[in-house]
């Protein structure tokens, strides 16, 4: 199969959905001529024109709010947040509006809205351009959260997110944009809430998503060299979350490790761990292990940034320790 980058896959997903459905339009800072800070929307203005690829002023609160409004009356806006850190400026619109309107107003009100947010660290962009803030939204009932780790998933999940009749936070990772992978030319949408088993294994279950799924994949290979067989599950979507697949795996392996790039305390890993603890308590042979970012702001300096982030090495070390606790 042809290989394309995560960026190209996203762009294809956007293009195809825009071709299929005239109600889809794009909104965000510098997404038109410039193609977005990371180039995802590059060229789409030429194909779809300024009516459907709309540059906004720097007004995160209101252009996300406007997207919510547009979604209520028949449009399907896809908003780009140049950095996920800026979602703090739009959280009222997502939490107090988008996430609640359908539940409260009933079937008359739907918010088919996608917010693409560029998350993650690893490029030395510093404290306010590197965060992974998905946990806030996993904690918010009424908004779906998706975080693809491969080009194929990026395309397939984005298509699904756009077709979904609910607000979806679609988290992209800046370190993944240049990753290449096989992507079918005619890609089916990938259902939300179905995890992907990246590697089969017996000794340990590793659950990850976004860039940390890629990092964990490397770790699985290294663990093999240590004679350990780890099962790797890429969550793909955090809400809905495919707890069943995780539980099933843990019933087999007896051990769970959750890897996430967000800060450790009260992160997504805590939820995954808790759910497994609640549903597979009797099958666990060891404590659940969380590998996550250290609870301090994300430094720009390379050694500090690396010290803070989870990595293949840290995952391997944690896995060996976890097995050791047997």
């Amino acid at each position, binding site marked *: 199969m042809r290989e394309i980058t995560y960026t190209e896959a996203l762009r294809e997903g956007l293009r195809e959905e825009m071709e299929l459905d005239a109600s889809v339009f794009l909104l965000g800072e510098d997404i038109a001529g410039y193609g977005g800070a990371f180039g995802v929307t590059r060229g789409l203005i030429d194909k779809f024109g300024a009516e459907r690829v709309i540059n906004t002023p720097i007004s995160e609160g209101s252009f996300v709010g*406007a997207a919510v409004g547009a979604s*209520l*009356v028949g449009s399907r806006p896809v908003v780009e947040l140049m950095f996920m850190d800026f979602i703090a400026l739009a959280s009222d619109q997502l939490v107090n509006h988008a996430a609640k309107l359908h539940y409260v*107003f009933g*079937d008359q*009100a739907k918010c088919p809205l996608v917010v693409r947010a560029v998350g993650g660290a690893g490029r030395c962009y510093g404290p306010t351009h590197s965060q992974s803030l998905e946990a806030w939204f996993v904690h918010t009932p009424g908004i779906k959260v998706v975080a693809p780790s491969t080009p194929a998933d990026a395309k397939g999940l984005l298509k699904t997110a756009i077709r979904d009749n609910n607000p979806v936070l679609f988290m992209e990772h800046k370190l993944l944009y240049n990753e290449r992978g096989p992507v079918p030319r005619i890609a089916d949408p990938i259902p939300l809430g179905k995890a992907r088993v990246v590697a089969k294994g017996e000794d340990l279950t590793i659950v990850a998503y976004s860039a940390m799924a890629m990092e964990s994949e490397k770790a699985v290979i290294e663990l093999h060299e240590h004679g350990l067989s780890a099962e790797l599950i890429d969550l793909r979507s955090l809400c809905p979350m495919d707890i069943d697949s995780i539980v099933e795996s843990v019933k087999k392996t007896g051990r769970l490790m959750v890897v996430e790039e967000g800060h450790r305390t009260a992160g997504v890993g805590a939820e995954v761990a808790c759910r497994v603890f609640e549903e597979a308590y009797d099958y666990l042979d060891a404590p659940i292990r969380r590998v996550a970012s250290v609870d301090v702001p994300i430094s720009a300096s390379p050694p500090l940034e690396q010290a803070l982030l989870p990595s293949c090495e840290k995952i391997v070390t944690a896995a060996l320790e976890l097995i050791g606790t047997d």
Partner: protein
Amino acid sequence: MGEKNKLLDYYRTMLLIRFFEEKVEDLFRRGAIKGTSHPATGQEACAVGACAALGKKDYVTSTHRGHGHMIARGGDPSKIMAELFGKESGYSRGRGGSQLMADFQLGFLGSNGITGGGLPLATGVALSAKLRHTRRVVACFFGDGASNQGTFHESLNMASLWKLPVIYICENNLYAMSTNIKNSMAVKNVAERAAAYAMEGVRVDGNDVLAVHDAVHMARVKAKKGDGPSLIECATYRLSGHSRGDPRKYRTAAEEKEWEAKEPIKHLRKLLLKKKYMTGKESTAIRKEARQIIAEAVKFSKRSKFPDESTLTEGLFA
């Protein structure tokens, strides 16, 4: 519809709003309903004048003080009341309460508990209306207090930049809760802020239903022509407290009196009598009819069932 019927219609609707809100206050006092609510008493001309100038397919976004807007747009008083009672038959099946109701069939896209929250929503609705070439217009109600939110600035700028068909209608009732506009706005009038968005800003007597109607009508014509948004400031006053239990100590009796003299229903009533569009007897009949509708709404609400607990998790996602 001739002028007579129009004015009588406004009068009926304004009375309906007034009696609705008075009944709600009464029900709160008697503990019949819970939560809170923000009465539009005294501001009826804004809601009725504005909605009368809109077309059937236009959209309306509202605020925390939204019962009046909803009634003016043709909303069912019984379903609004039932929502206040927290009943399954309410507009939001009891889920939203006073601050969160919608009737999309009427283009009424919802009241809103977040001050200033409706501004970007309305802007986005207008953007969608424009992109879909619908020729529909959006009327966005908000208060003087809301005009201090960042969303006001961001939304009006975008709407003007993109020439969106939206009419920003500020009901300036002098207060945001206890805070007088003198203590919240650096300028005297909200309309003065329009120039910062290369937008027309007009200030009208918000207690004069015709003045409001005419201003909104002109703004709508402009919006439909593709000439972009307008900001209309309606000078008005709420005769009641901000929400239930507000002792209104931040206002003087003199100020309240002054505004009571200017209140919109009295004003319209005089006009109707003067123009001989209505006799005293007819006036009494209209009032009685309005009261009956409200009484019916209360009966309907009381009779209605609370939502069943088992519905709690229904409909989180579409």
